[in-house]
């Protein structure tokens, strides 16, 4: 009887352990664009669950978005001097292309927004009739919902006054500032300050912009707060909220609650930085944490932030509540990751 009880308790314990493990099993998708493969990484188990080749050596895959079933792969080029013109929907083990979605030439990054949408940007080769093309893909139906034409290349998506806006990087120098284009109505706001960058996020309808070391003297290596003027639809009230001294090259990776997550990166594989700053927008406090070299992109999962490093295959796990970071080295392979996504929260 006693033995039976022990056996039952052991089974119960194992079941609870397994269940809790499964319930908390955060899984990440890490894309190594240079090496043309991706990892499925389990945070709890601290191991790579799978490694999938995403394109041929001479091709280039620049982003991947996990879907409910499978993955949306953004191939940039198919061969040297041959641009991709389709997005691929792969099944869950990358063994089969389920669907091809025709898009404009040279798709580059996918900015996921709302419940189930992504804006696909393109490099310069989508330039047509003096405009840059981008498509909105519905991630449920896997169909193009809308084709949009911008003055520059979309560099991100922000939520402003309840709507989603594309942040347009003025790559041709025609806007003399940064344009924020409403993805629904196509109305726009203009940040009419050419010294600011397109590295912009929005929190409570206030914009925050980081300018790297290449900026003008009074703007370089600083974080700015830009308050809107609804009447004129022009953002011109610019205030410097933080001047970074060491390291340089601040780059806003994204938002986590009230915090702006700023990585320091020159986007170079070598001689990059290994620091991250959490900027509290409520009380303007800053928290500097150690990270992998070359923090390039991030993903938020509950209280945790995962930042992928470009300098080698490494991720940084940050606990927002504790303001602590943990470096998880995956391998010494160079270059590291250019995209990180949460597959399972």
């Amino acid at each position, binding site marked *: 009887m006693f033995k039976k009880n022990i056996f039952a308790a052991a089974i119960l314990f194992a079941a609870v352990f397994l269940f809790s493990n499964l319930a908390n099993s955060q899984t990440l998708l890490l894309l190594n664009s240079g090496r043309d493969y991706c990892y499925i990484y389990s945070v709890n188990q601290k191991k790579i669950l799978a490694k999938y080749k995403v394109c041929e050596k*001479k091709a280039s895959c620049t982003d991947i978005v996990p879907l409910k079933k499978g993955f949306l792969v953004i191939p940039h080029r198919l061969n040297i*001097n041959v641009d991709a013109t389709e997005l691929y929907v792969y099944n869950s083990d990358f063994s089969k292309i389920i669907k091809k979605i025709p898009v404009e030439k040279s798709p580059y990054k996918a900015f996921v927004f709302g419940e189930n949408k992504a804006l696909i940007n393109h490099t310069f*080769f989508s*330039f047509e009739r003096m405009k840059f093309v981008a498509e909105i893909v519905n991630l449920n139906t896997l169909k193009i919902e809308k084709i949009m034409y911008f003055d520059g290349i979309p560099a991100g998506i922000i939520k402003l006054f309840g709507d989603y806006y594309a942040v347009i*990087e003025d*790559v041709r120098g025609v806007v003399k500032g940064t344009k924020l284009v409403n993805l629904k109505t196509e109305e726009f706001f203009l940040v009419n300050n050419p010294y600011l960058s*397109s590295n912009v996020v929005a929190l409570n309808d206030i914009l925050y912009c980081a300018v790297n070391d*290449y900026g003008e003297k009074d703007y370089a290596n600083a974080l700015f707060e830009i308050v809107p003027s609804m009447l004129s639809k022009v953002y011109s009230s610019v205030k410097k909220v933080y001047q970074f001294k060491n390291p340089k090259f601040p780059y806003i990776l994204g938002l986590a609650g009230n915090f702006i997550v700023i990585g320091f990166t020159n*986007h*170079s594989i070598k001689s990059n930085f290994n620091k991250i700053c959490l900027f509290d927008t409520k009380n303007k406090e800053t928290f500097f944490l150690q990270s992998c070299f070359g923090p390039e992109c991030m993903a938020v999962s509950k209280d945790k932030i995962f930042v992928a490093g470009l300098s080698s295959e490494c991720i940084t796990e940050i606990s927002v509540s504790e303001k602590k970071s943990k470096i998880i080295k995956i391998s010494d392979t160079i270059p590291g990751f250019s995209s990180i996504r949460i597959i399972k929260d």
Partner: protein
Amino acid sequence: MKRLLVVLAVFSLVMVSFAKDIRDNENSADFVAKFFQLPEQQKEEIGTERGWVKVDFVYATNYEDLIPKELLNKMPEELREEVLNSAMEKEAEFPFAEFKKVERWIPSPSDMPFALNYRIENKNDKFGDGDGVNACDFSVAKKGDVLLVHDGFVAWGWHAHAGIFYGGTGVYATIESNSNQSYFGDPRPGVHFEPISHWNNDYDFCRIMRVRTWPLSTSYRAKAAEYAKKQLGKPYNFNWLWKWSTSKFYCSQLVWAGYYRTSKWYARINIDANPADTWVAPDELYASWRTYNVTSSW
């Protein structure tokens, strides 16, 4: 009846020219595929007859020979020493005898679109392991720096492609002019921005070179990058034999023009190692006395 005849004549004319276009394209594709398999002497005969040009550093036996003697004499002593040292550095890194041996052909404008993708796949050498990735340190790059890459042997030399570093506050920090096989006849650019990751993730080897602007100030480096930015959106120049065009640009022409066109007429910054001819290949930017290595992924 007359109208019908005119329509028929126009139709047949269009069809004949269309057929000729297709035939020419087929010929070009076939020719390019066969050309590189030919023995050396035949290559010279057939290539020259078809309007291809062999690029050679005829009068030079070392990198120092590429420095104009009259300029060398005029240089301040410090600079002269620096220029001669960098010639020695190039010699140590890539001996001129080896560099000279590299086969360099500039195809005729009509064959160019079909030659652009020609290369020997998986060619391993000391500069690259054929994995299409390099770790060139872009943190040291400055506005106006020349970017050169190698990715297996290409028709026009050892360096396959060139670009210019712009920097700036956005993601897109470099400017290049690239063609695309499927762009043939397509008016789209040409000259465009690329992120740094393009240079690291798409080639076996990458180097960053800086330009000596003497006797002009170093501010001409930034001016060259701004010139390249002003050309954004212009189409690719398939006529590699004509570097003087300002309405179309090929990769090394864009970088060369950035320096040449912005400098003063009395002190041209000419980064073409063979300045007398009408073309400029990426290898000629490397061999020029005006460029020196800042860093490379090797």
